[in-house]
């Protein structure tokens, strides 16, 4: 692989075929750069750029600790991802939580566990009442099917001011 053989290699031949080495070099450069891009994409996917991975899985808490949510920042259209809400309140009380924002336009709630004691519509969103256990904790597991495209905003709040807001992005 001597460097001095290169100039001869790169000049255009006219016979038996007409070559355009300047263009061919661009093609080869494109292939090389493209390969780096592919590797980068694989690494980013492993990291969770396209959902499920350290870049995508998020854990949010309200400042007073009464509300926590685990969710995926990135979703792919047609895939199902879980979301977990953790509520804290009085022991054995009925805890109220409101899921607001435009996220219901982009997501289809496939499952909701445990079944809330009561649910109601609240503006654009939903309101649930869940039974807390003896420690005053309640969890709500949602399974979300991504149907939309683009960014959707969620605001989850409990009465008394504790609230978390976040955005979720759905890839095509």
């Amino acid at each position, binding site marked *: *692989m*001597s460097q001095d*053989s*290169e100039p*001869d*290699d*790169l000049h255009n*031949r006219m016979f*038996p*075929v*007409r*070559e*355009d080495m300047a*263009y*061919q*070099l661009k*093609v*080869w450069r*494109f*292939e090389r750069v*493209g*390969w780096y*891009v*592919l590797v980068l994409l694989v690494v980013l996917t492993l990291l969770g750029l396209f959902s499920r991975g350290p870049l995508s899985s998020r854990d949010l808490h309200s400042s007073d600790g009464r509300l926590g949510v685990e969710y995926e920042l990135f979703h792919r259209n*047609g895939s199902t991802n879980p979301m977990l809400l953790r509520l804290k309140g009085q022991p054995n009380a009925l805890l109220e939580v409101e899921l607001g924002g435009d996220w219901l336009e982009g997501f289809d709630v496939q499952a909701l566990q445990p079944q809330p004691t009561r649910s109601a519509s609240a503006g654009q969103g939903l309101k649930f009442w869940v039974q807390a256990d003896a420690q005053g904790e309640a969890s709500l597991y949602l399974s979300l099917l991504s149907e939309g495209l683009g960014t959707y905003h969620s605001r989850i709040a409990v009465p008394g001011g504790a609230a978390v807001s976040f955005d979720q992005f759905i890839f*095509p």
Partner: protein
Amino acid sequence: MDSVLRAAAMYLALMVLFKIAGRRSLAELTTFDFVLLMIIGEATQQALLGDDFSLTNSLMVIVTLIAIDVGLSLLKQRSRWVSQLIDGGPTIIVENGRILQGRMRHVRLVEADIMEAARSSQGIETLEQIKFAIIERNGKISVIPKESS
């Protein structure tokens, strides 16, 4: 609407991906390449059809793919630039029995690949008997033997 968009996006994405892979990558199909190709087909199929398995949807996807394909070949006919962009041009890799190493490196080929093509197409035994070896636009290696004196 989205069946057309899906098909067009997939056509474009696959075209760019196979450009990155280079023209050689699937030209000489080994058994494993064939399996790989089928897996790529399987992965594509879901994204093309989505969750709509109706006759209309699959027909519209096929119609779109063929329309783009025919449209591009018409464009290629009219413009040399488009033709070169999509199909590329042939490249000589062996000249009068001498391998052009710089080019070989770029196309990710080794001498054994050329000799394989030379044996199977021309019954050539040594590199010296090759006048030209050319990678064609479709990735196949054509071999032109030296005239025996």
